[in-house]
């Protein structure tokens, strides 16, 4: 049974609730009116290479003390600034602080021109050139690649299809490797139902709202739970600012290049070729056994898009002898964003990277 409150405790609680209600109203108005949205992805950087809409950024740093440089490879369907969200909550910032030379590959926003982009466009055309450009810019022979989400799949395909010293280390994070266990677009794209082309818009790409709905289906109550979290913590300016940043990013989805989506649906989702080791790119077989560089598989234990059972088999699928699996108590986005990411995920990833890098 709850103990009775003393009059002074009761007064303190009432005062706290009134104060919080005022703060809630203030932040609620800001949220609804879209006022005071944070500036995202603002770490200083240079564009060091471009091809079509793809850009390679190098972040400014005076603390570089490790090589090879780190190349961050983002998914195709979300904006890359999630990796450099805002000061104090930026994965890029933490890697720079740890002494790494950080590059980020931004795929741009596809339109009609990119509708014909395939997995080969990304893995055989853009990635090899971006890796070469990053190596040349940093004056090294290779890079450490960190692929996040679908960026992990692209990095794996690239590293397996282009084996060589240009990839010194490979890190795959929140990567839905075994598609039979992953859960976005549940069932709708299975054979006999929708064909991927039926989801294309007039530009020949899959529109962002379709992608977002596909993700939402994986956890139907997630959105409403997120609003409940917001309401509960709306009084806290710190929480509100962090929420606004992630919310802004989550709403800022981009189209999925049509041809690549069709290929991904058929080869990776339906036929699960990556996990079955029957993948082909540009007519040639691609086997993850050809990846022999040191490999780290970072798994978020509460990830609903790349659950453990979809991500973990990757650890034994690569040909590397130096393989580690890192399991973090986090969700898909929380893996690299937020306080626990700074305290848990990044220190562990940075430790692995330090052990696999040379000091300058």
């Amino acid at each position, binding site marked *: 049974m709850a103990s009775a409150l003393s009059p002074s405790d009761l007064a303190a609680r009432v005062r706290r609730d009134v104060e919080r209600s005022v703060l809630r109203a203030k932040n609620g108005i800001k949220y609804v009116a879209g006022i005071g949205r944070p500036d995202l992805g603002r770490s200083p950087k240079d564009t060091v290479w471009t091809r079509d809409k793809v850009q390679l950024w190098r972040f400014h740093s005076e603390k570089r003390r490790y090589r090879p440089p780190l190349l961050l490879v983002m998914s195709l369907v979300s904006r890359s600034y999630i990796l450099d969200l805002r000061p104090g909550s930026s994965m890029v910032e933490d890697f720079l602080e740890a002494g790494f030379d950080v590059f980020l590959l931004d795929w741009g926003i596809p339109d009609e021109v990119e509708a014909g982009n395939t997995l080969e466009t990304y893995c055989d055309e853009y990635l090899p050139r971006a890796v070469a450009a990053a190596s040349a810019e940093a004056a090294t022979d290779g890079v450490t690649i960190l692929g996040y989400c679908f960026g992990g799949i692209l990095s794996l395909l690239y590293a397996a299809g282009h084996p060589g010293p240009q990839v010194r280390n490979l890190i795959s994070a929140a990567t839905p490797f075994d598609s039979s266990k992953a859960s976005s677009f549940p069932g709708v794209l299975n054979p006999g139902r929708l064909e991927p082309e039926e989801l294309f818009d007039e530009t020949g790409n899959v529109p962002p709202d379709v992608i977002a709905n596909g993700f939402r289906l994986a*956890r139907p109550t997630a959105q409403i739970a997120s609003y409940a979290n917001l309401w509960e913590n709306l009084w806290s300016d710190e929480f509100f600012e962090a929420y606004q940043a992630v919310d802004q990013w989550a709403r800022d989805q981009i189209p999925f290049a049509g041809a690549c989506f069709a290929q991904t649906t058929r080869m990776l989702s339906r036929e699960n070729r990556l996990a079955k080791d029957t993948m082909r790119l540009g007519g040639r077989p691609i086997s993850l056994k050809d990846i022999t560089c040191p490999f780290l598989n970072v798994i978020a234990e509460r990830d609903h898009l790349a659950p453990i059972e979809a991500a973990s088999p990757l650890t034994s699928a690569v040909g590397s002898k130096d393989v580690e699996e890192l399991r973090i108590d986090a969700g898909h986005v929380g893996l690299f964003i937020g306080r626990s990411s700074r305290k848990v995920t990044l220190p562990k990833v940075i430790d692995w990277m330090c052990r696999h890098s040379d000091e300058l």
Partner: protein
Amino acid sequence: MADQRPLWRKAFDSVEQAIGPGLESAVKSDEFADVATVAMRVRTDVARGAERAMRRALHFWNLPAGSDMKRLSDQVASVERRLRDLAKRFDELAEEIHGQRPQSQRPRRSRTA
């Protein structure tokens, strides 16, 4: 440690825990996939029908319709794709002839943020 969550939140969480897993498995079921497939096809057919009717009406008054704009934008995209291919071939040729890094691989420095 005592549970600090407000009452409404406790109620919300227990409802979510009660219906969440059921909803997730319903969404993953074949029946849901069948219904979603039909719904998406109906939506596409309705949109296509409306677009056809609108196009006929606009063309009757000699006005361009969305499909005309799409045709134009497809043509522009196709020209841009051809230009890209040409630029890439020039780069490859330059690399073969001069043994130099193609234009598209040379650092292009511009401050972004």
